[in-house]
């Protein structure tokens, strides 16, 4: 058992919901509202010094009633000790948790991927967009258990949506600061930016 679990319980009391162990590794379940505070303390406290964020991911279990868990894998480079911190998100409430990007810059893309795959919103993330699927991906969040392996649409519909996606529709004015060169952009790109880059896929002309 990692002694950090006890120090956490002494420091944060009831915010530490549960401590378990699996395969010689300590897992600490914490309150989602205080995750940033707890991780900041774990990172900055000289006795803990978990300065390396190894991974952020999420787990959804097969039983529908179990909550989704957001998993933070930490490692202390100085003490060479790992720790796993988890936040449980019940499925009947909006899936939201605070972002830890202010603590570790490496959390940026990791949280974007969790959002892309599970639909969990990270409050305070500087740029929460899909990262692995394209941004107007309409089928859902792939790693959820109710998402079928082959996707929700038929293959022809998936091909149609893929071929009709604009390869350039991944800019945002804020992201690139291209306000100065806006007038140089081609007309259709300007139109897309004006509409908001998360435009709709054009419906096929022959149907509906």
């Amino acid at each position, binding site marked *: 058992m990692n002694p950090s679990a006890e120090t956490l319980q002494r420091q944060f009391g009831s915010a530490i919901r549960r401590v378990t162990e*699996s*395969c010689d*590794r300590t*897992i600490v379940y914490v309150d989602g509202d205080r995750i940033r505070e707890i991780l900041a303390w774990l990172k900055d406290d000289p006795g803990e010094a978990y*300065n*390396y*964020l*190894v*991974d952020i*991911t999420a*787990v*959804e*279990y*097969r039983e529908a009633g179990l909550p989704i868990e957001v*998993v933070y*894998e930490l490692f202390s*480079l100085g003490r*060479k000790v*790992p720790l*796993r911190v988890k936040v449980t998100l019940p499925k009947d409430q909006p899936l939201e948790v605070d972002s830890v990007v202010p603590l*570790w*810059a*490496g*959390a*940026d*893309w*990791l949280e974007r*991927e969790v959002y892309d*795959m599970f639909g969990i919103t990270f409050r305070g993330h500087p740029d929460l967009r*899909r*990262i*692995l*699927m*394209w941004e107007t991906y309409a089928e859902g969040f*792939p*790693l959820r258990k109710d*998402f079928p*392996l082959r996707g929700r649409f038929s293959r022809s519909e998936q091909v149609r949506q893929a071929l009709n996606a604009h390869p*350039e529709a*991944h*800019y945002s004015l804020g*992201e*690139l*600061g*291209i306000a*100065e*060169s806006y007038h*140089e*952009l081609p007309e259709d790109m300007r139109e897309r930016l004006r509409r908001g880059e998360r435009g709709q896929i054009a419906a096929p002309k022959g149907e509906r």
Partner: protein
Amino acid sequence: MALKRTLDVALGTTTLDEQGRPRTVPLGIQGSGATALEDAPELGGEHMLLNIGPQHPATHGVLRLVVELDGEAVVRVVPHVGYLHSGFEKLGEYRHYNQIIPLTDRMDYLAPMANNVCLAMAVEKLMGLEITERCKVLRVIACEISRIISHLVWLGTTGIDIGAFTPFLWMFQEREKFYNLQEAWTGARLTTSMTRIGGLMADIPDGFEDDLRTILRSLLKVMAEVDRALTRNGIWAGRMQGIGALTGEEAINMSLSGAMLRASGVDYDVRKDRPYLDYETYDFEVPIGEHGDVYDRYLVRFEETLQAIRIFEQALDRLPDGPINVDDHRAILPPKHAAMTSMESMIHHFKQVMEGVQVPAGEAYFSIESPKGELGYYFVSDGTAKPVRWRVRPPTFINLSALPKMSEGHLLSDLIAINASVDIVMGEVDR
């Protein structure tokens, strides 16, 4: 071991001073020192948007870089990934643990055996299996082969990006020799699938050890030639020194790993700090860089290749005889003659094949030092034969997220060099 540079190239551009004599103006990076760009007259301040990729020879796969340029200087770069997203983690939930092994080959396809080893060890940790001594040494050999072939590709493709084409052909020729070994051992050049839960798919064939020793001798010669050609080459050093530097603090904060982290001076190698496969009993050194720029990453990876050769010598000397598979019917198929003659073995064989390896409920995170960095597999199991969640902690995905920070203020051709130094493999970035 701390790496010392033997050649320091002062980057600069030549102008004429008041007396008409040539004078070198040093180029600074990221605001330190005078830049030649500042001396140039103001030509108009509109930025250009350049899209590199996803199909581009210099992006090492299907990476898309959207670059905002001020002339030739990069103001901002935004990498877009996901163009090779293959749904590995979703697929893993629908496969038995042994069936996931072929999937792992296809992620980091430059170092397939390292992926296989990591997966087998993660599941063995979940099951609490202890593998045999021979299997451990063979897996060390597999990991180091992967390290060498991955670094050879890196060296070759980085050479192409910087402009040196010949090392590419040398490296691929050496890789062909390693491919012969892999093919003799596993049957496949690239998609090896060489581990199984609790052991390996096959023992090394006869003559493997001698072939390996021969290859290592020729590899040393080739690495010496590359060293002569590149390390103290003015163009090579000039294009790589001072480019894309990251401090150790920044590297830790961005969760970098592997050569990216060690080149910035952080001494973290999973083989030393969280040893597996008895790595603590091997005598090798981990090269640590100093400046954190592209040149140091080159030196670190070069030295890692030489250290891998050192590990090989020790591994081959200590290779013990014995079985490669653990004698546990929960994980390993019984030998054919036993399955044909003993009822118990036949039942074990049947259950194994039809139901897959039953792994007890729990979760485990296991990481190895793959050539790209800290490759980790996180399994959550509910006691059945298919994982509830298989998470791949991709070192290159996280290393690539540092690209915007490293490239700001550099020139476009430096961006290509920095991108090359991250050593990305898109199969792992996008999974």
